[in-house]
């Protein structure tokens, strides 16, 4: 190594160190909406430094091909940065797939470059890298397909599903172990990747739309861990740090999501989703419900002091968030205190509902987390449920036979009056009947969320002059 190269190497390492610090700061600044935009700048600066540093690497000879790849990636990336906010979950799933694709391809290239002279430790980490990467590629594509509704959202289950999945994973691990012991058996490598890819598909098949927040978080964690494994293979501290940060972020979010769905973390880790949906629709009888018109609903809201709106994914599907903002403005003008209760799994990914409401210009200090607002429902005059169902189901608190028993819910039934905007009495996503609708303090507002909120706003406007 000539002194010039050594000097370059030091510059590169220093740039990587600064990038690592900037990445950590970037996540730290995400703690509050006021500092979060600094977080992006820190992240971008870190990324720029790291890429520039890498280009200084002495072994790099082919800059032309690199430039083409960077430009092509940018061209693909720009539309992915401009999708509608309702489409953010599938965009996120797609980008998990892209990240994992990168990691898996680099891992495969390293395998063919380094074998058969590869240490057992490195081969083990490389196997972890490509297995996690492979299953994240197809798993994320499946998730994106389900979210985009290209694939059926309904969970597909069959007998012995878990056995098949575990056997498949076991075969991949056996191949990995064999490769660690005999790294010259290069023909086996593609099979290991193919099995990982197949496993990813099978892992997501039994998952329904309601479980997507957990699944996306989990895939996020897998993508991060595979990147960290790649850092071991390439002996890159920067990659290890970024992968560990991303991995812990994904795992924390999966823990939060699984708690909000009342699933144990091990249940989530092993991908045993979608059981809730099977045990629905039994023993239903006709029970009386009370309904109200937009005019009546407007009168009740106008007379209230405290209103809590409970939005669900149905609100986003109906594109009702802008009408909801008008309702918020109209009620706030009358001096009504309006807040929004956000269940952790509302929407299709962690925090999705907050983004949709923020897009509709609802101030973020009006968006209140479940734990914080649940105590306030008893002092709330009206709880207005828009497009949410299971997260308001009181059976989760009391009925031990309910499939969602134990799931933390928003205690809307404790409000003085509950109003639920719903198309019909048909059960929600998980196919579970909601006893909330038959309570004495509950009023059903039948209709399309957007149209109904619109007519409430009109009534309020008319009444006010």
């Amino acid at each position, binding site marked *: 190594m000539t002194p010039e190269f050594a000097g370059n190497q030091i510059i590169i390492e220093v740039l990587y160190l600064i990038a690592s610090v900037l*990445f950590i700061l970037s*996540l730290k600044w*995400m*703690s509050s909406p006021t500092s979060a*935009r600094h977080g992006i700048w820190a*992240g971008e600066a870190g*990324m720029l430094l*790291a*890429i520039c540093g890498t*280009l200084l*690497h002495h072994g*790099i*000879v*082919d800059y032309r*091909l*690199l430039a*083409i*790849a960077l430009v*092509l*990636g*940018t061209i*693909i*990336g*720009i539309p992915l*940065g*401009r999708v509608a*906010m309702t489409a953010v979950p599938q965009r*996120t799933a797609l980008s998990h797939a*892209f*990240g994992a694709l*990168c990691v898996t391809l*680099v891992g495969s*290239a390293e395998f063919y*470059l*380094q074998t058969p002279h590869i240490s057992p430790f490195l081969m083990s980490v490389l196997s972890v890298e490509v297995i996690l990467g492979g299953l994240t590629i197809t798993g994320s594509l499946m998730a994106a397909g389900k979210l985009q509704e290209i694939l059926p959202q309904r969970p597909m289950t069959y007998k012995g599903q878990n056995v098949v999945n575990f056997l498949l994973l076991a075969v991949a691990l056996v191949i990995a172990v064999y490769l660690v012991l005999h790294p010259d058996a290069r023909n086996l490598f593609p099979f290991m990747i193919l099995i990982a890819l197949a496993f990813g598909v099978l892992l997501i098949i039994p998952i329904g739309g309601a479980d997507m927040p957990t699944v996306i*978080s989990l895939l*996020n964690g897998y*993508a991060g861990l595979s*990147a960290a494994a790649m850092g071991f293979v390439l*002996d890159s501290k*920067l990659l*290890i*740090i*970024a*992968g*560990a*940060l*991303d*991995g*812990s*972020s*994904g795992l924390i*979010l999966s823990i939060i999501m699984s708690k909000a769905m009342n699933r144990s973390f091990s249940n989530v880790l092993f991908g045993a989703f979608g059981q809730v949906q099977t045990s629905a629709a039994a023993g239903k009888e006709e029970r009386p419900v009370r309904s109200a018109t937009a005019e009546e609903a407007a009168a009740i809201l106008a007379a209230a002091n405290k209103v809590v709106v409970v939005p669900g994914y149905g609100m986003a599907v109906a594109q009702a968030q802008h009408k909801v903002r008008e309702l918020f403005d109209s009620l706030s003008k009358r001096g009504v205190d309006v807040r929004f209760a956000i269940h952790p799994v509302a929407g299709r*990914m*962690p*925090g999705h509902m*907050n*983004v949709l409401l923020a897009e509709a210009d609802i*101030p973020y200090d009006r968006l209140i*987390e479940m734990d914080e607002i649940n105590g306030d429902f008893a002092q709330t005059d009206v709880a207005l449920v828009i497009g949410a169902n299971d997260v308001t189901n009181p059976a989760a608190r009391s009925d031990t036979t309910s499939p969602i028993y134990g799931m933390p819910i928003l205690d809307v039934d404790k409000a003085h009056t509950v109003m639920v905007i719903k198309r019909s009495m048909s059960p929600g996503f998980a196919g579970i009947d909601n006893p909330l609708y038959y309570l004495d303090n509950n009023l059903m507002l039948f209709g399309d969320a957007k149209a109904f909120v619109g007519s409430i706003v009109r009534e309020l406007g008319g009444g006010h002059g």
Partner: protein
Amino acid sequence: MASSSNLIDALFIFVLAGFIGFEVIRRVSPLLHTPLMSLTNALDAIAVVGAIILVGEHRSTLAATLGFIAVVAATSNIVGGFLITDRMLRMFKASRPAGKP
């Protein structure tokens, strides 16, 4: 290529970075979980550095080809990830001071 002392170093870094990640991410407001995920996604695309070296060094056609696709995939995550995170965060606004008439 990593020697065994390097591997121990790498393990130290991994564990410590994991701890930092846990402590930092725990403090992220649930309001921002969606932008958090798109941001970590963009940061995770730092894997591009490994792919850049594969393409740049051009040690074999296979490695360069795989690296090329990897650079494209990672770059699109970087560009798309930062763009959408920025768009989302710009939407989060606090209440206007004069809320009530």
